[in-house]
């Protein structure tokens, strides 16, 4: 009986919780639709549907366990990965960020030139009958008028309030913008064309001046090209996200749009020496860095594990101290090391009695990176090596000792090979981890030093992942397409290393 009641209460709670989540998601989906975010809205609707199906019917038991995880994974991991894959097929960089429709609008807005007359007016922004308007004054003539999108209304000076320079500030029917309206004026006024005469219009230059201008670039939708009305030149879609002259490929109209270029980002990595050169240098250092890190941390960790493999006095104290670098939040440790390597007042130079500019010289910077990573990483290998040492049967060593082997021989012929066999998956995993050790590089050296004169963005300590980050989010040209392509290559490299190591450690089989 009590089971029955509990079952009913549980069902009741379940229905309420599911309804609650579903309604929140539905609300979100609705506002996403309102904002024209159709992909997100569709995802949210599917999520609602799945939630209902999974928890209110008996369609699948495992899904009851997986659904929350799967939905979050899809939204924030799989979705972004697919987006990255898609981006890698596009010409998607600074200057080619927006869609083609937006680019056409912007080219039209920018495709104007001052009229030959060179007329300019002092203007005030405001509204007439609620619509954007400007109050224009030419203090030399003097001439005054209000201009809206539709018409130009001439004014006589006597009806106006002029300031000390003779610029009209108030006029009948004209409502100047208040201070609070000014903050949003940009959206309404920039790019707007106010009436001047049949041929020309007034374009704003800032919020105080208006220039009599004419359109020189005209879009021809049927032919999908831009025509220069003055010279007659035709700019056609070059298939790579820009309108360009047919005979001069470098004469393109700004801005461009993100256009599919399929595998060009990938082929550029191989064929374009400006991309390939730094990438190969960075790749070599990445491998060297990851290898050296694994070697140094493993060597130091193993040495410690061997030294403390016997119950000597103070072993517990040693152990507690030795794991401290591993226990510290690594972000802070890395920043602290960064301060210690400072040239003028860093502790390292004080201790060594030198004045080395650690982060200005490529080799010193690389040494520093390896040293810091040694400090961060050796406790890990100490912990796992000492664990593995205890797992090696002592009979093996004893038998070897009886056969007359000295301790060094025992270590080289028995302990080390066995240990390497046990630890090789973890050594490989550590290699893969350090291959992508972004935090260390980013926080310690920022990838530097780099040669700023040749405009190269790859620094001496940049590893692939930090270099890619710079390509995508750096200060110069941000090339998301190329960065995505390199990302996928890194993914393939790391995934194959990791899969190899997983196969070797037979972890996958435990799931079979």
């Amino acid at each position: 009986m009590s089971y029955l009641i509990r079952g009913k209460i549980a069902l009741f709670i379940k229905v309420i919780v599911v309804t609650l989540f579903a309604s929140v998601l539905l609300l979100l989906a609705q506002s996403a639709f309102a904002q024209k975010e159709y992909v997100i809205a569709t995802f949210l609707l599917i999520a609602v549907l799945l939630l209902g199906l999974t928890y209110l019917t008996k369609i699948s038991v495992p899904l009851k366990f997986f659904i929350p995880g799967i939905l979050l994974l899809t939204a924030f991991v799989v979705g972004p990965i697919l987006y990255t894959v898609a981006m890698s097929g596009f010409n998607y960089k600074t200057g080619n960020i927006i869609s083609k429709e937006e680019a056409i609008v912007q080219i039209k807005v920018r495709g104007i030139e001052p009229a030959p007359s060179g007329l300019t007016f002092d203007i005030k922004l405001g509204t007439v009958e609620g619509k954007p308007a400007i109050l224009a004054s030419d203090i030399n003539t003097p001439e005054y008028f209000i201009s809206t999108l539709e018409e130009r209304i001439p004014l006589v000076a006597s009806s106006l309030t002029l300031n000390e320079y003779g610029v009209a500030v108030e006029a009948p029917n004209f409502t100047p913008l208040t201070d609070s309206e000014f903050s949003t004026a940009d959206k309404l006024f920039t790019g707007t064309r106010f009436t001047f005469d049949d041929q020309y219009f007034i374009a704003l230059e800032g919020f105080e001046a208006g220039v009599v201008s004419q359109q020189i670039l005209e879009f021809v939708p049927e032919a999908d090209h831009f025509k220069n009305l003055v010279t007659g030149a035709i700019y056609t879609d070059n298939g790579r996200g820009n309108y360009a002259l047919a005979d001069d490929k470098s004469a393109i109209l700004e801005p461009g749009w993100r256009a599919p270029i399929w595998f060009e980002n990938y082929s550029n990595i191989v064929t374009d020496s400006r991309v390939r050169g730094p990438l190969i240098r960075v790749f070599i250092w990445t491998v060297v860095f990851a290898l050296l890190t694994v070697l140094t941390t493993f060597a130091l960790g193993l040495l410690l594990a061997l030294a403390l493999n016997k119950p000597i006095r103070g072993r517990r104290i040693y152990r507690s101290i030795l794991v401290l670098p591993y226990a510290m939040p690594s972000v802070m440790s890395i920043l602290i090391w960064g301060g210690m390597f400072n040239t003028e007042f860093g502790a390292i130079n004080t201790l060594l009695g030198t004045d080395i500019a650690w982060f200005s010289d490529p080799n010193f910077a690389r040494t520093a990176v390896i040293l810091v990573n040694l400090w961060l990483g050796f406790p890990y290998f100490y912990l796992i090596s000492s664990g593995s040492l205890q797992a090696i049967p002592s009979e093996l060593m004893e038998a070897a000792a009886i056969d007359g082997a000295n301790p060094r021989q025992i270590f080289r012929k028995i302990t080390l090979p066995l240990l390497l066999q046990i630890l090789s998956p973890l050594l490989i995993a550590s290699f893969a981890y350090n291959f992508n050790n972004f935090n260390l590089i980013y926080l310690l050296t920022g990838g530097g030093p780099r040669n700023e004169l040749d405009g190269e963005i790859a620094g001496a300590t940049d590893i692939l992942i930090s270099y890619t980050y710079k390509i995508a989010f750096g200060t110069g040209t941000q090339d998301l397409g190329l960065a995505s392509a390199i990302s996928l290559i890194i993914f393939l490299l790391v995934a194959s290393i990791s899969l190899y190591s997983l196969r070797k450690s037979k972890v996958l089989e435990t799931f079979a």
Partner: protein
Amino acid sequence: MNKWLRQDLWRHVVGISICLFALFPLYLVIISSFSSSGSLQLSSFIPREISFANYSKLFNDPTIPYLTWVKNSLLIAGSVAVLSVMIGTASAFAFSRLKFKGRKFGIQLLLLVQMFPAILAISAVYVIMERVYNFAPGIGLGTQPGLLLVYLGGAMGVNIWLLKGFVDSIPAELDEAAKIDGASEVQTFWLIFVPLASPVLAVVALLSFIGTFNEFILARLFLVDMESRTVAVGLQQFIGGQYSQNWGPFAAGSILASIPIVIIFLSLQKYIVSGLTAGSVKG
């Protein structure tokens, strides 16, 4: 004595010298936090003065909302820990105990997805959350709930090895018995499995807490407001500006923020080591 020298001396020499290497930066930070000079320098090994100026600056300077940062970090890392363990445990339980089509394919897909370097998908995450902000400002870019959601994206996979190990360590006979008594899979999970596994789940939650506490890049990208930052982001920005100026408060702040993490870590050492050998790697 002679034998002791021969056999154990080298062990102590190795132990002491590496301990010095391990302690040096930590010692330096501690003495810097008590010095008023404001830089991370080594004027002498024994501090000449003990000043609490840096600590009091952390708590009293209105331009440094240190306590708010700590609160943010605790809140975010705490929520991630609890929620990600719930999601992760449910997945690990299903992968380990339930028989269904595509189980092996599912786990392999999950592993593969996890191997994609998260930093590289950041631009896509950024664009997605920017759009979410347009229609739901509460959970989009720049908000803590948004960051929490992004962190939870990986919840299903991150601790799967550790959790899988724990799930396997609980005898399957118990849930078979429950099944015979008429319990459904979901009931078995909540009424039998979770209570039995709660101590280990607490350990996994604490590990997840440490991991999130340590996360830097996403937090840096997401949390722009001074008031909404986490400790790691806040302290980093602090020395990013005027390089030599703010080391004192930075040192003090780092020490205070690290102490709980170090304590958690040391008390969980045993479990962490077994988790390490199960495949998760740091450093």
